[in-house]
């Protein structure tokens, strides 16, 4: 199962969803993406949500290091292969998690 958890206060989830869909198409998968909106600090705690967007494949976060951040309604920080900061995972992170 592929889950995308998001918080509306952060604008990055549409970009993350589009990237995830592109990668799925490119690797020949047709999985449905289960979208879950996180609306409160309590939900963030319960869902172990370290920020928006959070993408999990079969329960495993695509960025295991980032998943250790404290649960919060916030925009999540990802790092691209060249070290630059990004509000969405890299294509490489998604491909690695999906293969």
């Amino acid at each position: 199962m592929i889950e995308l958890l998001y918080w509306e206060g952060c604008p990055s989830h549409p970009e993350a969803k589009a990237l995830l869909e592109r990668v799925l198409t490119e690797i020949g998968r047709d999985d449905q993406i289960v979208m879950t909106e996180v609306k409160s600090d309590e939900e963030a705690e319960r869902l172990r949500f370290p920020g928006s967007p959070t993408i999990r494949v079969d329960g495993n976060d695509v960025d295991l290091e980032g998943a250790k951040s404290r649960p919060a309604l916030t925009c999540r920080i990802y790092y691209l292969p060249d070290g630059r900061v990004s509000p969405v995972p890299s294509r490489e992170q998604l491909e690695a998690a999906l293969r």
Partner: protein
Amino acid sequence: MSIDLGSEAPSFVLPGVDGNDHSLDDYGDAKLLVVVQYCNHCPYVLAWEGRLMAVARDYAQKGVRVVAINSNDVAHYPEDSFEQMKARAEKLGFPFDYLFDESQSLAHALGAERTPEVFLFDKGRRLRYHGAIDDSRDDNAVTRSYLREAIDALLAGEEPPTAETEAVGCTVKWK
């Protein structure tokens, strides 16, 4: 709702990471004043950070001052505390003042909504450009450098080619 183009810059007196208080009047000599709603924790701020630092450095000798304002609620976002602000500014060597708006009064007065969000004031401290630093958080994909274009135009006595854009980033974290 942010202030309208042409509006006067709101006055402020805020503590900076340099240990001094800074007021709007302190920047009175600047030909242009760039006020940027800012913070530590937001990936959009971090993605644009190098480009904002470059703007501050490139235009310092031309009389342009940049001041970053963090107004976020540190109770919920401790990464944005004053101590963390000091640490980040020192680590990166910010070429701009970084001020803490703990009461959020300046963010309210500006009508700021996002981080990063730019407010460019002219010599008379009227708002002449508002919005994004440029048109992409990905520095490899930038096609329009809105802030630089506006600064260049105003320094040349012309109108900014684009006066308002949508600021893309994290929301200001209100108390």
